[in-house]
């Protein structure tokens, strides 16, 4: 942890960055985002198993961008997010410094190329456990799956915490806020919840980097990660495409291959 604090103090003192976004101790022993502006604050930085939130979400907030160049304590998911944001022209190269904790010390990654190299070194596919859980769903019958999701979505409040916590849901006016025409019903009834959750999953298809913040943010505990992981596995198995691996990559859903499988088309 002190390698991280030392690096943060050094960066802030040398003014290479104006803010260090990292994790600090939160209420009830949890970790939460902290925004270091002065070298002295670096002592508050921590990094342990409780630091799960994808801090890249703050790269898209105007109030944080206003602070100037940021250094971000980046988990592997946050690194993938930065690359995906780069692929979608949201962050420019050299506009941020990623601090990737590796064991006890810190790997500063200043350019997208550095981040790509670092990301490429590790395995980012769905874990065996995640794959198994998706497999469990595939084994369930259609009716059983429908009942499962119907119960889950019936508890959705449409508080949009899943959207707010997701670093790739940075659209200022989301389709949900479009009322001419009213694509997604505002009330949180069964139909509205189904349309909202299908739309959220589809709009993240080929983009989501599987950081899991949407599920962690959901106050009523709906396993939203399952929807995204299902699409991640489909996109990678059918189109051999993986998001968050390169700063320059076209999106699986806005490109095509002439030989995409079409066994279901008559």
């Amino acid at each position, binding site marked *: 942890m002190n390698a991280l604090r030392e690096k943060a103090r050094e960066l802030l003192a040398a003014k290479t960055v104006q803010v260090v976004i990292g994790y600090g101790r939160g209420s009830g022993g949890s970790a939460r985002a902290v925004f270091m502006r002065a070298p002295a604050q670096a002592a508050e930085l921590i990094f342990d198993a409780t630091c799960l939130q994808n801090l890249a979400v703050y790269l898209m907030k105007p109030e944080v961008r206003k602070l100037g160049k940021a250094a971000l304590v980046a988990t592997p998911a946050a690194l993938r997010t930065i690359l995906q944001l780069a692929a979608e022209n949201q962050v420019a190269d050299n506009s941020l410094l990623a601090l990737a904790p590796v064991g006890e010390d810190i790997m500063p990654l200043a350019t997208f190329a550095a981040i790509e190299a670092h990301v490429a070194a590790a395995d980012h596919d769905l874990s065996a456990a995640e794959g198994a859980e998706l497999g469990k*769903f595939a084994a369930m019958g*259609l*009716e*059983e*799956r*429908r*009942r*499962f*999701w*119907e119960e889950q979505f019936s508890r959705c409040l449409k508080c949009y915490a899943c959207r707010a916590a997701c670093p790739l849901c940075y659209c200022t006016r989301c*389709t949900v806020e479009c009322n001419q025409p009213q*694509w997604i019903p505002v009330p949180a009834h069964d*139909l509205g919840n*189904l*349309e909202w959750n*299908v*739309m959220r*999953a*589809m709009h993240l*298809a*080929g983009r989501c980097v599987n950081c899991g913040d949407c599920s962690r943010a959901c106050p009523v505990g709906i396993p939203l990660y399952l*929807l995204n992981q*299902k*699409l991640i596995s*489909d*996109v990678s198995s*059918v*189109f051999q495409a993986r998001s968050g691996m390169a700063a320059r990559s076209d999106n*699986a*859903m*806005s*490109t*095509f291959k*002439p030989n*995409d*499988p*079409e066994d*279901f*088309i*008559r």
Partner: protein
Amino acid sequence: MPDFEPKIVAFVCNWCTYAGADLTGTSRMKYSPQVSIIRFPCTGRIDFMLLLKAFASGADGIIVSGCHPNDCHYSSGNFHARRRWIIFRGLLDFLGIDVRRVQFSWYGRWGRSRATSACAAWA
């Protein structure tokens, strides 16, 4: 249930399929009046949200049809559409919605006899 009258919405592209539907008309081929057509410039224009909205508004079945690959008037609309269909179907099935309720197809210009077969698939 013999008296079940499925309401089927056909989202079609303006070139091969709409012209194909016209041709089906000029050659007086018969198909069920339960199928109604909505015209789009291309299958590329058909948004998955529309399919969702159609189901949410009470459609029992949906046909989405466009030009054969390589025949698209805009060269790649149908390819893009196909890719979205693949992912959308996967998601619907994952959510327990019967994907047989959405039929995707390429209809060439030579008539919509296959429309009748598609509708027959319902009844």
